């Protein structure tokens, strides 16, 4: 499919001149791939159309510099447009007097109740005293669900009998918050379809009764083309102030975020990254943009690495890398680390350029190749590991024998190691660090 836009565009541009200006024909060819990638990522059809139009305008006639390929040039523009559409992360608006009101709205099953609890926890961390309000009187046990979450977090939950109309419950809750000295009230409303007039009226009433500072649309990251209509529907009725995208911990590309942003213009405030109440994250436009383009999620990978890896070992490796004396011994040590990060396939998926590889290689093959790599390095002497340069033909033959592999395997590993060293040198380049886009070039991440 469209796992790796970079490779696709490379393919398109390989047949073209690598220098000069991007012609209309070049750009159109490339934009066809971009369009497909965006559609495959569930960005709304019409939104894709206008986005691609904007990119086209900017890309035609652009001078292709020597340092980056035409494919990278186009991706860069696409990426920039996506960033512009996604906008910056915005914090919760907690201005004004107590109690502030945060109202959560959205379709059924989008994750409002869990998100309410997450927000409460988040706000308590910044010294707020939240009150959760169970305003979903429709879904069986929805009130109980919020109560349980509140109990777990030791955060108060305001409830009334399910027969009381939600606008009244919410108004009463705000009153209770005033006298109870809660600084912020979080309204968990029932899920509803944006075309359900009666229930949309109810939302308007809740809004009128409570004057929320924030009205946040909670939307599932897996939403398809409908995202536009849903967002428009809610926005028209209650004037959204922000968006929270949930279930982003799956493998959805999250194109709905672009669609919703484009039609509402409201900022994305948070991402829901798991079922646990602590799993609420600040939104990073660049990560989401890369993800939507199917170019891996390097930053998430790095973050995961930070969580899972032995810091000392990682730091030692990084330091050596920067000093330029990273050797095979360090490589082996880092490999052990990678293995701790979980199923290799998942890790690989996050690396740009790896999508295709993970498709063609089974999980088992990958684990095997990792094992093979380990075996090869283990068969080297310490001296060889520290000075890979000395690995001549006879040494390689010995290592192959010792590790039960072939000389080709050993050669391949050494070649990969060299490539990695080369890439690491580029990593040191400040320009590289500034420009995330370069990370997608060169295929430096392929293999180990």
């Amino acid at each position, binding site marked *: *499919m469209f796992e790796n836009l970079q490779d696709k565009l490379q393919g398109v541009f390989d047949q073209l001149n690598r220098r000069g200006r991007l012609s209309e024909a070049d750009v159109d060819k490339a934009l066809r791939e971009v369009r497909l990638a965006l559609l495959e990522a569930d960005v709304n059809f019409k939104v894709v159309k206008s986005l691609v139009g904007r990119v086209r305008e900017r890309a035609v006639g652009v001078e292709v510099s020597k340092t980056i390929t035409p494919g990278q040039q186009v991706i860069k523009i696409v990426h920039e447009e996506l960033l512009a559409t996604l906008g910056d992360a915005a914090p919760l608006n907690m201005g004004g007097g107590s109690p502030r009101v945060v109202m959560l709205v959205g379709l059924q099953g989008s994750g409002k109740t869990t998100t309410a609890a997450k927000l409460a926890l988040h706000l308590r961390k910044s010294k707020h005293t939240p009150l959760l309000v169970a305003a979903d009187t429709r879904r069986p046990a929805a009130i109980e669900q919020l109560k349980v979450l509140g109990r*777990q977090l030791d955060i108060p939950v305001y409830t009334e009998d399910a027969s009381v109309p939600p606008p009244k419950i919410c108004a009463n809750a705000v009153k209770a918050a005033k006298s109870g000295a809660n600084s912020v009230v979080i309204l968990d409303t029932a899920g509803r*379809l944006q075309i359900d007039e009666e229930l949309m009226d109810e939302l308007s009433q809740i809004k009128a009764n409570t004057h929320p500072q924030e009205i946040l649309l909670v939307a599932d990251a*897996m939403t398809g*083309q409908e995202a536009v209509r849903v967002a428009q529907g809610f926005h028209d009725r209650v004037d959204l102030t922000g968006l929270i995208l949930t*279930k982003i911990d799956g493998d959805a*590309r999250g194109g709905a975020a672009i669609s919703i942003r484009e039609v509402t213009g409201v900022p994305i405030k948070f991402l829901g990254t798991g079922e646990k109440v602590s799993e609420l994250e600040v939104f990073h436009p660049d990560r989401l943009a890369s993800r939507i383009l199917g170019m891996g999620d390097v930053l998430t990978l790095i973050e995961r690495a930070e969580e899972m890896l032995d810091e000392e070992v990682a730091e030692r490796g990084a330091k050596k890398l920067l000093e330029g004396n990273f050797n095979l011994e360090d490589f082996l040590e880092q490999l052990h680390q990678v293995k701790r990060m979980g199923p290799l396939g998942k890790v690989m998926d996050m690396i740009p350029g790896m999508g295709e590889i993970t498709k063609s290689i089974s999980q088992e093959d990958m684990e095997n190749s990792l094992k093979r790599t380990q075996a090869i390095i283990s068969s080297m002497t310490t001296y060889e590991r520290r000075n890979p340069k000395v690995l001549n033909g006879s040494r390689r033959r010995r290592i192959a024998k010792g590790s039960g592999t072939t000389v080709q395997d050993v050669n391949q590993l050494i070649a990969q190691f060299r490539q990695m060293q080369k890439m690491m040198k580029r990593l040191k380049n400040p320009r590289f660090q500034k420009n995330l886009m370069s990370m997608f070039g060169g295929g430096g991440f392929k293999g180990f």
Partner: protein
Amino acid sequence: MFNFGFGSKKIKESLTRTRNSVFGQITTLFGGNEITEELWDDLEALLIQADVGVETTLELLETVRGRVSSEGITKPLDAQRVLKEEMLKLLEGYAPSVIDKQRILTVVLVVGVNGSGKTTTIAKLSKFYRQQGKSVVLAAADTFRAAAIDQLKIWGERAGASVIAHQPNADPGAVVFDAIKSGLARKADIVIIDTAGRLHTKFNLMRELEKLRGIARKQVHAAPHETLLVLDATTGQNAVSQAKHFKDTVEITGVVLTKLDGTAKGGVVFAIGKTLGVPVRFVGVGEGIDDLMPFDAQAFVDGLFDE
């Protein structure tokens, strides 16, 4: 057209809405005298906006174009017929659901991502089978999500099904075991297992489902007889990945497409049919216990084109 006995007015309304929004336009498109390039473009736009997906859309259109030219078709309406036939092919040709087969005890496992509508669907299914005079036992194997057990208990009561539940955070395997045991003991007809929502990419959670399957299989021959993936019609192309992962782990035998009462088209089921060969068994058209109907591919595709 739909005479499934209950909720039919609502079902009709919801499908009409679907028709009029996107697919309704297809008929208008086919209303002209000639098959033009523009017609194909518009068609592509419409299918993609119905979440059919780029790949499936392009393939469908290519096939239809091929047939249009090889069969010498010149009228848009005939092209429409061909498109319908091709779309139908992706949804049809499956043996009927095995839930209705006579056996000692039928076990149905219900799986899906968080919030897709599993528990509600189980309530609807319970009512559906209760109305056929069958006795239904529900296994509250979502012991993870807050108040999931209470939710199922409430629905069980409304549907007239008994619910076997343990404490929150108990082992879901033990719940499944007890529910099937109880089903066998009281000679129930069907046991339906409600599982916790999980993203298909979570390795350990998927392994847990595999275990539940194993437990069911040990107790009743060939159980679970039907494993239903509950899919939210609002979902985009990720649904294909969901179906693939759930199929790989628990061999889903069917899909329930929920929330079709909204404006979402659920077009992704074509891709699922095409790539995985998994049939849609039911559709959910509301939050009420009667808002379920057996999926009828012909009616579904016809409904998409009807004015």
